[in-house]
């Protein structure tokens, strides 16, 4: 009997069932895709983290440690893929005599590398000149000594002995901080700056300069405290857990175990775990974003599905009543309806899994749906959706069965029939609670994700998201209250409807006013769909805008040419200006300066002209005014802008004199130069995240005698890749010159671990948002109007012309759509603003304001308009065609 009933329903109500099944399919596809995105991005973070760390472990050997024993211990450690010995020795100075002058550095370091080191750790040193594997100077050392390939360099050891070597190459260290980190220092100790002067030697040459006792005895140089040995270790990333937090814990325990087994002779600097430690917060943010950008979409989809299922509720009630009158028990009727819900759920899930495959491949780039984690997500999501759908429908239909069999025409409500939530002001209370929660979150500084350094535990303050949830609920109800207030105001409604229904406005207003429950359902659906689309797109656009700002900061300008003191990019400005597509070029100095004993980056600029080539955001400067800050700098030639940290360390006030030691042209030594503190700079194009200094390039050049401007910042007014390729050709083959562009930098940032890769999630959600809006607007309007076929048939039977019938239809459509769009847009902006503030940890740097995706919003409005038009037009056609049939039913 149930089967027969089901076949009858499929035959008699195909549109409604198809719409509901489609809703289930979309919900399933969205949940599954979001889950796949989450697992893929988490796993991707781990593998990208590993790739970003050039040296996974640096294992320091104590003076008593035996190299052979240490290597055996390492090789016996799980996940260790390889280890290379690196030896460090401090020396008194380096000297070079070039171009008739003699340059002498201060204390330096000589590093011994094995023949396999560079192939085992390719990310450590970048060859700038000459050949690898011989005597190589670091870039800074070569600059200090004015030495190049082929020059002779003298190493003076602390015992006064000297060694002459010929330079074979010049290299740049990619991660000098890590390579020269102090291992085994007390936690909380200030990190030491990497040495300014470094020479790399093959290990055999190194050992000839710093001979050690036999390999089986302890290494040590009595009285000499400036030598050390490390094993640089690479870890097999494929053996690590996929989740960064788990990988962090795993590696930490491996390192601790190694140290314990070595009885303290080995100390591990776990660079990889440290990276995972930073990334695990990002992984948590990915999960959080999944929850708060994705779940509302899934909830919306479910709501739309339920709404479609319950369309025709009067007809369903009538059917149930007829069944009961003809002897069916309540249980039998319930079983019939449950069968219908189960059928919809099953079909929807099967279709949904197909949509998941398409969405995953299209938006997330994942085709491997049958992998363990993905399969689990799909099964869990499908079950969740199916259970929710069936339970929700069962609950609603069960409640209906318990009511009187007489059809009570719920669509029409008397004006004094105010729902409970309105009488109790739940909407106001929810919004107020949301504001309070938001304020409390702000008091805590929006620390949503906590991943304390050095501890394996991570936490998410989920309570921070109570505010947006309350805004969703309260905002939707408040919008509903306002809509019902509007629709109850006959005079206002007549005025609003007159452009569409002219003389019929009074009767249309009266009719719509008494159908507010039915219309409210449509308004809520459209409003929530628009709110979801607006909040998601505004959040994503703001994120992308900030990613571009981050790229702008990292790269410096649209295109940046980076040279060095010997080959400054500034010398090529006339040629750069001649390239098609180059709108402006500005040079910038990049030097190193000692602030006390602290080595910092110094950027020399022309404050009056720098903005021609690169954007200067107000957020870069304390005081929030870039124009004012640069103007102040240009008004004082010796003016300088420093970091907040430097200002606090040295207790600086505006106007204070600060002496910075810069390298001079004559003897390349560092001498103090007085500057005047003008203000604090927080961010600057190309500048590192830590402390740096900005000053006038003319003053630096005048005082030091070095006029080179190492960097050229280029603004392009044609497609950047095109212009960059021309710039590349200009600098091809010139040693020490690199050309970078903002788009490549942004792509690198997007895929880096300092930011969550939102691209896949963005595309998925924006596509879904459009579908949700089309579904809620077009489908619900069409189905809602179809419910009132009888009313429209009556109107036509009474004598309404086609034009007049269209007035009724379009008045309702426009009222629902426009109200839904207004409510949805307002709610969406509020939620987006709340999420941006709560999730400010995702943004680097934090955005000054929200960015609106105008193109997408226009497309959204067009989708709404098109779906409404199609929905209403199809009903108009249907109404005319079925007039006789509908009249027969009267």
């Amino acid at each position, binding site marked *: 009997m149930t089967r027969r009933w089901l076949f009858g329903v499929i035959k008699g109500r195909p549109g409604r069932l198809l719409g509901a099944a489609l809703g289930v399919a979309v919900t399933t596809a969205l949940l599954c895709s979001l889950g796949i995105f989450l697992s893929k991005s988490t796993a991707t973070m781990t593998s990208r983290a590993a790739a970003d760390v050039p040296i996974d472990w640096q294992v320091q050997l104590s003076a008593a440690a035996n190299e052979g024993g240490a290597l055996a211990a390492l090789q016996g450690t799980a996940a260790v893929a390889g280890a290379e010995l690196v030896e460090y020795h401090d020396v008194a100075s380096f000297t070079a005599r070039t171009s008739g002058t003699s340059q002498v550095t201060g204390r330096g370091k000589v590093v011994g590398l094995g023949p396999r080191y560079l192939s085992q750790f390719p990310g450590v040193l970048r060859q700038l000149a000459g050949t690898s594997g011989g005597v190589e100077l670091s870039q800074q050392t070569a600059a200090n000594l004015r030495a190049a390939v082929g020059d002779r360099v003298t190493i003076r050891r602390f015992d006064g002995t000297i060694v002459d070597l010929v330079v074979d190459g010049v290299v740049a260290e990619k991660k000098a901080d890590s390579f020269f980190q102090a291992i085994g220092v007390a936690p909380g100790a200030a990190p030491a700056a990497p040495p300014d002067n470094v020479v790399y030697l093959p290990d055999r040459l190194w050992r000839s300069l710093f001979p050690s006792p036999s390999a089986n005895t302890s290494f040590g140089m009595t009285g000499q405290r400036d030598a050390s040995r490390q094993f640089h270790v690479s870890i097999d990333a494929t053996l690590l857990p996929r989740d960064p937090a788990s990988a962090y814990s795993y590696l930490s325990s491996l390192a601790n175990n190694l140290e314990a087994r070595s009885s303290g002779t080995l100390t591990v600097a776990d660079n990889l775990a440290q990276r995972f430690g930073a990334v695990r917060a990002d992984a948590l943010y990915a999960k959080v974003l999944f929850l708060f950008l994705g779940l509302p979409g899934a909830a919306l989809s479910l709501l739309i599905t339920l709404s479609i299922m319950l369309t025709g509720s009067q007809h369903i009630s009538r059917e149930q009543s007829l069944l009961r009158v003809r002897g069916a028990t309540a249980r039998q009727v319930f079983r019939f309806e449950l069968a219908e819900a189960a059928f919809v759920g099953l079909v929807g899930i099967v279709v949904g899994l197909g949509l998941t495959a398409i969405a995953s491949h299209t938006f997330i780039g994942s085709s491997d749906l049958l992998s363990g984690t993905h399969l689990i997500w799909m099964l869990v999501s499908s079950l969740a959706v199916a259970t929710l759908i069936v339970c929700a429908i069962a609950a609603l239909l069960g409640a209906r069965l318990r009511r009187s069999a007489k059809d009570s025409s719920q669509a029409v409500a008397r004006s004094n029939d105010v729902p409970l939530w309105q009488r109790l002001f739940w909407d106001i209370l929810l919004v107020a609670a949301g504001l309070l929660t938001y304020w409390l979150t702000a008091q805590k500084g929006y620390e949503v994700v906590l991943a304390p350094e050095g501890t394996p535990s991570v936490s998410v303050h989920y309570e921070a998201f109570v505010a947006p949830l309350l805004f969703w609920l309260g905002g939707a109800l408040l919008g509903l209250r306002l809509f019902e207030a509007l629709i109850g105001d006959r005079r206002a409604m007549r005025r609003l409807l007159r452009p569409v229904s002219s003389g019929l406005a*009074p*009767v249309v207003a009266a009719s719509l006013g008494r*159908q507010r429950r039915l219309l409210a359902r449509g308004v809520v659906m459209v409003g929530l769909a628009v709110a979801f689309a607006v909040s998601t797109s505004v959040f994503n656009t703001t994120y992308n805008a900030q990613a571009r700002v981050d790229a702008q900061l990292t790269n410096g300008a649209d295109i940046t040419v980076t040279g060095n003191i010997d080959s400054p990019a500034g010398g090529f400005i006339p040629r750069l200006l001649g390239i098609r597509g180059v709108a402006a070029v500005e040079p910038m100095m990049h030097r190193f300066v000692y602030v006390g004993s602290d080595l910092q980056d110094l950027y020399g600029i022309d404050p009056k002209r720098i903005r021609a080539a690169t954007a200067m955001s107000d957020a870069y400067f304390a005081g929030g005014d870039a124009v004012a800050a640069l103007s102040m700098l240009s008004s004082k030639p010796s003016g300088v802008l420093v970091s907040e940290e430097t200002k606090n360390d040295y207790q600086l006030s505006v106007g204070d004199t600060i002496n910075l030691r810069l390298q001079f042209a004559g003897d390349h030594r560092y001498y103090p130069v007085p500057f005047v503190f003008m203000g604090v700079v927080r961010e600057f194009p190309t500048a590192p995240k830590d402390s740096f200094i900005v000053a006038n390039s003319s003053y630096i050049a005048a005082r030091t005698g070095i006029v080179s401007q190492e960097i050229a910042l280029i603004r392009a007014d044609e497609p950047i890749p095109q212009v960059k390729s021309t710039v590349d050709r200009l600098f091809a083959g010139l040693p020490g010159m690199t050309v970078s562009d903002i788009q490549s930098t942004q792509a690198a940032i997007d895929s880096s671990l300092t930011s969550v890769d939102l691209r896949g999630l963005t595309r998925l959600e924006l596509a879904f948002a459009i579908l949700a809006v089309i579904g809620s607007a077009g489908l619900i309007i069409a189905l809602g109007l179809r419910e009132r076929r009888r009313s429209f048939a009556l109107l036509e039977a*009474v*004598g309404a012309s086609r034009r007049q019938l269209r007035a009724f239809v379009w008045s309702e459509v426009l009222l629902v759509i426009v109200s839904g769009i207004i409510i949805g847009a307002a709610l969406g902006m509020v939620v987006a603003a709340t999420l941006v503030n709560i999730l400010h940890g995702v943004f680097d740097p934090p955005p000054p304001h929200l960015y609106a995706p105008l193109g997408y919003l226009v497309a959204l409005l067009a989708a709404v308009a098109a779906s409404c038009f199609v929905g209403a037009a199809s009903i108009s056609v249907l109404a005319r065609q079925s007039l*006789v049939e509908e009249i027969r039913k009267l």
Partner: protein
Amino acid sequence: MSDASYVRLIDARKTYLRGPRRVTALESITCSVFPGDRIAVLGPSGSGKSTLLHLLGGVDSPSEGVAQWPTFGPRDGLRPRFVSYVFQTKSLVDSLTAEENVALPLVLMGMTQSEAQAIAEAALASFGLEEVAQKLPEELSGGQAQRVAVARAVAARPRLILADEPTGQLDHPTAGRLFDALFAALDGTDTALVVATHDAAIATRMARRWAMHYGMMEVLS
């Protein structure tokens, strides 16, 4: 046939497609309705009574033959100015009050709301329905709802009223009172009334009677 007729059917035939089958609802009907006519259309269910009324009112068009309205003009402009319908049950718009339902055809004809309202009030009063003017259809009894429907049909002062089983859901006394009010409202006008009915008591009050049987018409008197 006289040109003064309101509507005439000439060899009008109506067929419908029901799945794969073609069903003939009316077989070659020729008839006319004149001003002031009181016509009862009798016949069992499925005999074609409703289809006949649909053709007379212009709701549907004949598959063969001709339907003409010499006095009213083309088919598109028949309702509500010239033709009104009364249905068996639930023919009021759920979201409008009784008064608004009665005023509806007047508003559709282009009257202002206040003019239509005044006429509707008077129409309801003539049927003794003043006290239910502001009630919604769901709040009316069956008899009250049917009287409102009749008041709506009458208020627009049409030339032709077509009533399809208007008393089908009412008991005899109520049906009788309804027709008393209807005849009183139409008294002195040249409005024609065509009623499809099973009710013999109603039929005897009508001047002419048509009998429908398997889509064929027989004029009884």
